[in-house]
């Protein structure tokens, strides 16, 4: 019988594959639940996977394929901002709804495309929260800003830097490190020489882990603040143990794992031996939102779906979500978390 086809486009291979896995797990769990509950408008949902490896070229191929060959009605993804941007033009032109669960670059929704929405915050919001925290809570005077020279990380660092300036502070250092490398000792020595009293890092856990470890090893005990790119237990593994992640802070949406709606789902994931961290629940929520829009508006047209979403609020596993006219979340609920020596994180009161 006929099914509702939803594309899941993200990095399922390559260096970012870990995020692709989170995305897929979340989306898969969502359709299982929805299908069990009767599907959308009585139709079952079918997920179609498209691997873009976070490469624009592949993202274009995937987008065209999802649109023309698989004839999907909506897309969950992409993950990297650099792939979401070119691919979303294809979806937009074809009038297909696309909702990204993790592309936080402001440009994603700033281009006036009609069918593009996101489930996550924006780097500028996140950076603002980070800067406020660094200055007001930590009382830092000499802030070093680092990033990983990638769309996400650099966007974050730039936003943070910009807000730092509005707060009247100039960073003592602003530099990029290379993704995939593990040795940041030179940079750490430089941080030390610059006498920074806080370090802000825009990037992912795979670099943040070794970075913080090498900082601690070289006796740089100042706080490290980062964004949602390090929201993963892997961060602790990468840092060499809980000892090293003390005094590390990060911004993240109110932890979906803690929200009452999510409790049961999280328990189910854990039962299946999977920790639903990072973007897992985001992807789940994206599918929920898409399904809700289709169910309620009774349409599969991307523009109509987008308009419906922009006008209504959806109950998701991460709580109620609603969107503004650009497609960004109305409420950005970035809050600050702190890691402890047991390798767990908790909201900073």
């Amino acid at each position: 019988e006929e099914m509702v086809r939803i594309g899941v486009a993200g990095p399922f291979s390559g260096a970012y594959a870990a995020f692709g896995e989170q995305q897929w797990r979340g989306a898969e769990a969502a359709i299982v639940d929805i299908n069990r509950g009767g599907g959308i408008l009585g139709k079952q949902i079918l997920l179609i996977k498209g691997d873009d490896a976070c490469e624009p070229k592949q993202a274009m191929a995937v987008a065209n394929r999802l649109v023309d060959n698989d004839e999907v009605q909506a897309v969950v993804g992409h993950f990297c901002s650099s792939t979401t941007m070119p691919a979303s033009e294809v979806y937009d032109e074809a009038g297909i709804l696309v909702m990204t669960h993790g592309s936080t670059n402001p440009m994603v929704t700033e281009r006036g495309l009609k069918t593009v929405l996101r489930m996550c915050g924006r780097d500028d919001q996140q950076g603002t929260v980070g800067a406020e925290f660094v200055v007001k809570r930590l009382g830092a005077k000499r802030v070093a800003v680092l990033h990983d020279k990638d769309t996400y990380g650099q966007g974050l660092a730039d936003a943070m830097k910009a807000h730092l300036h509005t707060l009247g502070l100039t960073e003592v250092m602003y530099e990029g490190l290379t993704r995939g490398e593990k040795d940041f000792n030179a940079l750490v020595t430089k941080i030390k020489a610059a006498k920074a009293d806080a370090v802000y890092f825009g990037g992912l856990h795979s670099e943040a882990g070794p970075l913080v470890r090498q900082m601690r090893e070289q006796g740089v005990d100042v706080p490290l603040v980062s964004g949602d790119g390090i929201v993963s237990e892997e961060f602790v593994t990468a840092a060499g143990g809980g000892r090293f992640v003390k005094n590390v802070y990060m911004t993240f949406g109110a932890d979906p794992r803690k929200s009452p709606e999510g409790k049961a789902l999280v328990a189910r994931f854990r039962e299946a031996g999977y920790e639903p961290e990072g973007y897992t629940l985001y992807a789940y929520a994206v599918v929920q939102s898409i399904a809700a829009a289709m169910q309620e508006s009774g349409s599969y047209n991307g523009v109509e779906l987008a308009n419906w979403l922009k006008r209504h609020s959806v109950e998701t596993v991460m709580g109620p979500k609603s969107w503004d006219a650009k497609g960004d979340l109305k409420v950005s609920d970035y809050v600050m978390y702190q890691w402890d020596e047991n390798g767990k994180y908790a909201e900073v009161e």
Partner: protein
Amino acid sequence: MQKVIKHAAMDALKVGLLGLLLFGPMTGMLLDGYGIHYAPSRAFWLVGLLLLGRFMVVVVMNSPALSGVADLFKRKDRVEVVVSPMGQQHHKILVVLTLMVAMALPFLLSKYWLNVAILALIYILLGLGLNIVVGLAGLLDLGFVAFYAVGAYSYALGAEYLGLSFWQAIPFAALLAASFGAVLGFPVLRMHGDYLAIVTLGFGEIIRLVLNNWISLTGGPNGLRTPLPTLFGMEFTKRATQGGTPYHEVLGQWMEIDYSRAARYVFIYVTLLVVVTLLVYMVQRLKRMPIGRAWEALREDEIACRSLGINHVMVKLSAFSMGAMVGGVGGVFFAASQGFVNPASFTFFESALILAIVVLGGLGSVVGVIVAAVVLTVLPELLRDFTEYRVLIFGCAMVVMMVWRPRGLLRIHRPEFVVEKRVP
């Protein structure tokens, strides 16, 4: 037969034991934080499959009854060079047929496959360009992607800052890429084979890193949007964006036509097809021209070339910049077809892929390059259904193809000259 089976069984056992050692720890013991989590069944399944597979292969390859099948898969590692007169008749028919099919494609393919076809054409272009450098001149270039990037960015940046149109960008990019080739080539072309390889690799990385880091100019990792190509002021968008007129409005004056998103792809495809056809012709000619012969001679023996009065640095340089030029043109088409460029498209892997096209095609063979480019672009798309396993299978295919046909898919043809009886 019994002997064969016994032999196969012994062999399979050995391979199975090796497999157990290789797969055991890697697939049977899963890291989980700092702990470990055993999944022995996975390893055993894999080893079992390996055992069975090996057994079957050995049986098939060794049993006389199935020798026909076995022959099909036998490796060929001898050079097969055929000296054949140029311009054979059946050749021409084949060329015309291929062109006709290629012209018909946009009307047969879905937009997705059309997009793949465009990519394939771009890779043919790049393959032909690199073929000049590696196949003909014998210069191992592992950083060809640099010129590709130069081309793509000269369109993107040219449009952004200089207001270049697609058509202006092509010669601009070609020149720019060629001069990059010349500037890089001049100091490094005196180096020997593999040193050249690593320097070009380094150069490719430098270009990518600069594009990534020079944010004020290139937008860094965020990339740049590129305008869509136009044809005589006709735009291939629904509404005019660059001061032209949308094509359906222009053509609408004469005929019944609706806007279709595919038109843009058809246009790029056709333009590319023309460029590729011209290039194929050019490369075929080059091989029979003094400069092409000099390239090949240089590949064979540099010292002998010098003894014949050939300036080896200049000749190499000409190959290098000509290859770069083609790469630059490829870049413009890539940027135009994607509508967006960022440095992630110009990694080392891209260079490796283009090189694989050239080698698999059989160094120096034009038809080989075309076939290999099509295979290597269509294959990953066909494999999309295997998602997780796609790259793994692609890698396996690369190894298997190399092992099966180390000298390339096709035989190498050398031009034959008609020797008339000379009157003394």
